[in-house]
């Protein structure tokens, strides 16, 4: 697809991706929206309009409205006028789209990153695997609350989704 664009368009697309990298999740500010994997594509349509396609994380996540506003502001600040934000629902967002860098950033921030399998997440503080679920629902729609049975520290776990 990208090869069909002219050099100026390719440069614009590159610029948009760089700009999106600078936008963070308002509820987990260490993660950029690219780390989260919610930006699905940046393309030009037939009218030479830039289309940014994003996939929402959770239906009721209030951060999504904030993220859309921040994308619009950042685009406007960079002088982009001819663009549109599009919501793509299919395929549904999954934590599999979170980047490895994103997972490392989460861990360093004190949130256990999403993992597949049935074992409990390891404690992001002391790395112990001896942890227990306190509640399936945590401080935001995307998190559950666990407690480390060794260091006794409660911690957030980014739910597998």
């Amino acid at each position, binding site marked *: 697809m990208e090869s069909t664009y002219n050099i100026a368009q390719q440069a614009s697309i590159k610029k948009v991706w760089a700009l999106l990298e600078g936008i963070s999740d308002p509820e987990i500010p260490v993660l950029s929206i690219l780390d989260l994997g919610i930006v699905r594509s940046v393309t030009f349509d037939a009218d030479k309009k830039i289309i940014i396609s994003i996939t*929402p994380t*959770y*239906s*009721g*996540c*209030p951060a999504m409205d904030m993220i859309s506003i921040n994308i619009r502001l950042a685009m406007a600040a960079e002088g982009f006028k001819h663009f549109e934000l599009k919501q793509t*629902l*299919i*395929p*549904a*967002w999954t934590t599999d789209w979170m980047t490895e860098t994103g997972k490392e950033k989460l861990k360093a921030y004190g949130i256990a990153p999403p993992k597949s399998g049935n074992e409990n997440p390891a404690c992001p503080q002391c790395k112990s695997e001896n942890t227990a679920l*306190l*509640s*399936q*629902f*945590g*401080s935001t*729609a995307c998190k559950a*609350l666990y407690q480390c049975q060794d260091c006794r520290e409660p911690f957030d776990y980014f*739910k597998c*989704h």
Partner: protein
Amino acid sequence: MNNNIYNYLLQLADSSLILAQQNGTWCGHGPILEQDIAITNITLDLLGQARNFYQYAAQIKNEVDGSSSNTEDSLAYLRGEREFRNLLLCEQPNGDWAQTIVRQFFYTIYLESLYAALSNCEDEQLAGIAIKSLKEIKYHSTWCSDWVCRLGDGTEESKERMEQAVDNLWSYTGEMFIPSDIEEKVIAAGFPLDFPAMKSQWLQKVNEVFIEATLTIPDANAFMQTGGKQGIHTEKLGFILAEMQYLQRVHPGAAW
């Protein structure tokens, strides 16, 4: 057909919005902090799902009318009681924690099979919302089932309260599985909704959890209340709407 999809979307949206509005009043009053957070998170999911349905409904309505005046907000705040098509179950009072749990459990189990069916809908946008919502509902389902067991198989008092809650709510469950005119129309147009199958899945799951919870499942063929999907509601809905819509009715267009 578009008008039928529009009406069907409202039916889906209204049930989740009304239950979200009800659950929302637990915020800050949950029995313990973790469960306060849990019920409000579930509420947030329901509200988000309702928003997705309303947004889609508004889009369809605008296309049909050639206007841009319909929005998720106008649909939620500016329709009257008789225009709401939510299930009667969703407008039943919070009661105690047991009643809130039983109401949530009955509705969640229903949504689980409903959204699974709609995930295969040919209407891509509706299928997309259903697939996303289903992921969220699975968490609700585990949580509700755990609580039904904990309270049902808990103390003498918790069991008694659960039995009372089941008794209060049971007659509002039948309506979920009796197709409305609108549902008949979207089925005729190819929506993959199999009501008898959804009913038997629902009964099976309720039965499984109730056995573990040592609760008795009432008679599935008992007398059932109907009317919600047709806009004929219990007294409670008027009060819910009065509170929910007050601001937009008194100060039209008010925004943050």
